[in-house]
C-alpha cells in the first residue's frame, strides 16, 4: 500500500467506531518494515514461517512415531494424507523422482495451513496484533502476492531444472525452437513457448492469491456493512463454503505443481 500507517492502531473498543471505508482499508494494509523494494511484510513472513515450522515439526514427530511402528488416529490420518499425495504424484508424474512427492506434500499442507488462517475471525488476529503494537496485520499469507509468487516462481525454476534433467540441454532447446510449428518457424515457436511457460507460474500464483483475497474481502465486507446481530449468519455460511475453497485451492496448487513438473520432465 502506498500510504504509510497514518491511522493509529485501533483497539478492540475504538475499532468499532471507524467508518466502513476506513475499516476495509485497515484490512488491506500489511505490517511493513522498510521502504520500497527493500521492505518486508512482517505479518506474511511471521505467519507463513510459523506455519511452515509448525508443519515440519508436526510431520517430523509423526514420521518418527510412524517409523517406530506406533499407530494412532492422528498417525493414520497422516499416513492417509501422504498416501493420497503419493498416489497423485504416481498417477501424474511418470519417471523416477525423489523430489516431487515431498514437494507436493509441502505445497499442499503449507498452502492449506496458510489458507486456513482465513477461517479465524476476520478481526481477531489484527486486533491482537494491534494490542501487541503492530500497526496492521494481514493474517493470511496466501493473501500476499509475495507469498504466492514465491511458490510459483520456485516451481517455475524447478520446471526449468526438470526440463534440462528430462531432455538434456539439446533436447530442451530443440523443443523450444521446433515445437509446435516446426523448425522454419523457430522465432514464433520461441514466443509461443515463452507465453506458455510464463503463463503457468503467473496463473498459478494469481489464482491462489485472487481466491484468498476475494475470500477475505467477503469476510471484511460482511463485518463492515452488516449489523453485528445479523452479520454472523452470512459469516457462518461463507466460513463453511470457504473451508471447501481453501482445501480446493491448496489441492489445485499441488496438482498443477505436479502436472507442470511432469510436463517439463516429459517430451511434448
Amino acid at each position: 500500500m502506498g500510504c504509510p500507517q497514518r491511522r493509529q492502531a485501533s483497539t478492540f473498543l475504538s475499532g468499532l467506531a471507524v467508518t466502513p471505508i476506513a475499516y476495509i482499508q485497515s484490512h488491506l494494509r500489511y505490517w511493513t518494515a522498510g521502504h520500497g523494494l527493500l521492505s518486508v511484510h512482517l505479518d506474511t513472513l511471521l505467519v507463513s514461517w510459523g506455519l511452515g515450522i509448525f508443519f515440519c515439526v508436526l510431520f517430523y514427530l509423526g514420521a518418527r512415531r510412524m517409523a517406530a511402528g506406533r499407530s494412532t488416529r492422528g498417525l493414520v490420518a497422516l499416513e492417509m494424507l501422504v498416501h493420497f499425495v503419493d498416489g497423485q504424484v504416481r498417477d501424474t508424474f511418470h519417471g523416477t523422482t525423489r523430489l516431487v512427492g515431498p514437494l507436493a506434500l509441502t505445497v499442499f499442507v503449507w498452502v492449506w495451513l496458510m489458507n486456513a488462517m482465513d477461517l479465524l475471525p476476520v478481526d481477531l488476529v489484527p486486533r491482537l496484533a494491534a494490542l501487541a503494537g503492530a500497526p496492521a496485520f494481514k493474517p493470511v499469507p496466501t493473501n500476499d502476492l509475495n507469498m504466492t509468487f514465491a511458490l510459483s516462481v520456485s516451481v517455475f525454476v524447478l520446471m526449468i531444472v526438470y526440463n534440462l534433467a528430462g531432455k538434456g540441454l539439446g533436447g530442451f532447446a530443440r523443443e523450444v525452437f521446433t515445437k509446435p510449428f516446426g523448425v522454419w518457424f523457430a522465432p514464433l515457436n520461441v514466443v509461443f513457448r515463452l507465453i506458455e511457460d510464463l503463463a503457468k507460474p503467473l496463473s498459478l500464483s494469481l489464482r491462489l492469491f485472487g481466491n484468498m483475497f476475494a475470500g477475505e474481502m467477503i469476510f471484511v465486507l460482511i463485518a463492515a456493512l452488516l449489523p453485528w446481530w445479523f452479520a454472523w449468519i452470512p459469516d457462518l455460511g461463507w466460513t463453511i463454503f470457504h473451508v471447501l475453497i481453501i482445501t480446493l485451492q491448496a489441492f489445485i496448487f499441488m496438482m498443477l505443481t505436479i502436472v507442470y513438473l511432469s510436463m517439463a520432465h516429459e517430451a511434448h
Partner: protein
Amino acid sequence: MNLDLTFLGEVVGFVLFVGFTLRYVWPPILAAIERREREIAAGLEAAERGRQALADAEARTAEMMHEARERAARLLDDATRQVARLLEEGRRDAERQRAEALAATEAQIEQAVIRARDELRADLGRLVVITAGRLLEREVRAEDHERLLAEAARELG
C-alpha cells in the same frame, strides 16, 4: 502490494521446508506405508495359505470319513455273512443231531419190537405146548417139549 523482499524470504522458507520434508518427513512415512503394505500382503497370503490348509484338511477328513464308512460297511457285511454262516451251521448241526437221535430212537424201538416179538413168540410157544398138553391130556415129554417150542419158534419167525 508490490513485490519486495518478502518474496525472497518466502522463497527461502519454501526451499527450507521442502528440503526438510524431503529429508526427514517423506522417507520414514513412505517406508512405514510400504512396510504396512507388505504386512498386509503377507497377512493376506497367510490367510490364503490357511484357507488352503483348511480346504486340504477338509478334503482329508472327508476321505477318512469315506474310508471309515467303507470299512464299517465291510465289517458289517462280514459280520452278517458270518452270522448267517454260523446260523446255517447251527441249523445243520441241529438237523444232524435230530436225525441221529431219531435214528437211535428208531433202532431202539426196532430192537424193543424184536425183543417183544421174541418174548411173544416164546410165550406163544409155551402157550401152545401147554394147550397141546392139555389137549393130549398128558405131559409132553421134556425133550418133545423143547423140540416143539423150537419148532413153533421157527415157524413163527
